[in-house]
């Protein structure tokens, strides 16, 4: 180590020590906002989850009873099941479609067409999910565009009011999520593909690999980081979906599209069972954590 760098390190160390009080001062506003409006409500929620409370009157301590109720109530368990079904539409479909589309767009000549497709694919990211819900409830209506298109190809017999049908409502709502998230996945994959070493593609091509083999051996492994990131985002979006369901079905017909977010809203504000709603909120948070943390670790381990 040269004298110069040694001096510099010592200097940096000294200055770091000197700046600790100032540094703490700078952190205070952010930390205060976070503690006051995220952590404090969270602890309040944990507290409520042990109470039998209607939000106004006296509260009664009931221990873990609310948690047992969530985990034994068929309706609430059903809403968790629905959220897992939504992962199929929010995660699996957008990521697979995104991979395909990105490969396809990459093979197009760069320029206007691919720029334009990027912009268009991104539009759903810009508009509020609630507006997407409104647009799609009209598409799915009995007299809507979906049935119209089915009519064109001679399938009017399967036409229906898609969001009002017990068998199709959940899938119909899920596909709105696919519509929103596919653009994000595609564009992120496109930038990811751009970073893959071109010589890898050349190597498999020299080996005479098929399009599919190239896709599986080069593209997908090269994008594993993007896949991990997008899985995290989309799984969270699926488990905490609220806006789309609220503006399309409100959980109906019956409980066909009930998801945890809507359940919590209904229990807490319509049925005024604050304890049960809070317990469900905590369970939802734990669920998100247990699904997302392994995904995070996956992306990190593979990095090394």
């Amino acid at each position, binding site marked *: 180590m040269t004298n110069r760098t040694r001096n510099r390190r010592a200097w940096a160390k000294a200055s770091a020590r000197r700046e600790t009080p*100032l540094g*703490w001062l*700078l952190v205070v506003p*952010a930390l205060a906002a976070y*503690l006051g409006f995220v952590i404090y409500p969270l602890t309040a929620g944990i507290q409520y989850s042990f109470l039998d409370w209607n939000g106004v009157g006296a509260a009664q301590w009931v221990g873990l009873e609310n948690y047992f109720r969530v985990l034994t109530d068929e309706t609430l368990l059903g809403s968790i099941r629905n959220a897992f079904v939504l992962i199929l539409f929010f995660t699996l479909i957008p990521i697979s479609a995104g991979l395909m589309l990105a490969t396809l767009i990459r093979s197009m000549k760069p320029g206007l067409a691919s720029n334009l497709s990027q912009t268009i694919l991104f539009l759903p990211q*810009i*508009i509020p999910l609630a507006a997407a819900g409104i647009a*799609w409830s009209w598409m799915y209506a009995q007299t809507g565009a979906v049935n119209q298109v089915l009519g064109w190809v001679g399938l009017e017999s399967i036409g229906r009011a898609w969001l009002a049908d017990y068998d199709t409502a959940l899938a119909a709502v899920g596909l709105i999520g696919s519509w929103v998230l596919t653009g994000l996945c595609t564009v992120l994959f496109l930038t990811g593909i751009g970073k893959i070493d071109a010589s890898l593609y050349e190597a498999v091509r020299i080996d005479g690999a098929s399009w599919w083999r190239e896709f599986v051996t080069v593209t997908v492994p090269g994008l594993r980081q993007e896949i991990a990131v997008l899985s995290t985002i989309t799984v969270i979006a699926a488990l905490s979906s609220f806006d789309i369901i609220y503006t399309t079905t409100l959980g109906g017909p019956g409980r066909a599209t009930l998801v945890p977010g809507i359940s919590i809203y209904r229990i807490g504000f319509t049925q005024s069972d604050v304890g049960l709603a809070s317990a469900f909120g905590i369970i939802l*948070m734990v669920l998100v954590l247990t699904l997302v943390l392994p995904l995070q670790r996956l992306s990190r381990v593979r990095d090394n």
Partner: protein
Amino acid sequence: MTLAPLLNMLSAALQPADVNPTGLRWPSDPQWGNFITAFNAGNVLRLMGSSLFIAIFVVPTSLLFATLAGYALGRLQIRGGRFIFLFLILGLTIPFEALMIPLYYVMKDLGVLNTQWAVIFPLIGLFMPFSVAWMRAHFLGVPKELSEAARVDGASTFQEFIKIQLPLARPALSALTILLFLWTWNQFLLPVVLISDPLDRTVAGALTFFQGQYLSSIPLLNAGALIIIIPTITLFIIFQRQFILALLQGAVKG
């Protein structure tokens, strides 16, 4: 495929207001007047004002707090900084749904329930994990030599921050501005839960009000919904490069 629902909204919005339209079909006599009707009946001006009011407090405050904390955590490397950072990052995994019930009672206790402040305060808090992480990542990426050179020249921490760090942070700050603005403008759950009068909500949160109002007229509902998304779409088309970059980086870092 991506455009179809939006075009379908437009085609429906242009049908005569008292007719139930069918499918995707360009109207023979486009009723552009529907937009004016929806604009007035939906109190869109007041809604946009309300959204702007919320965004004007949330976005600059979040930017300021996040820049200060990001600088401290990324550049000054304060003692315990790593712990604070991890503690903040944990907040990224808390779904809004887990907080909506307690936030309702916290805001009630503060006496701000059903006012815009009931959304402004929580949003600033909820944006902190992402925003601080974002700014910290930026400050970590600034070469140390730059600030050390400034120090050797006798600049104070404050001078270095203003003269060297802030100008360098402009791209990171503008991307974060775009993200925070979009997330505030499109925020739905908090306004729906915490503000009972739809006209005091964000534009997105007020869409439910449109739904209730225009239950009988699909053309007007679609016209109203379109008016509401036009400002963000316009901004997006003007700044699409910045938007796409911001959202992509936002996805990776989030």
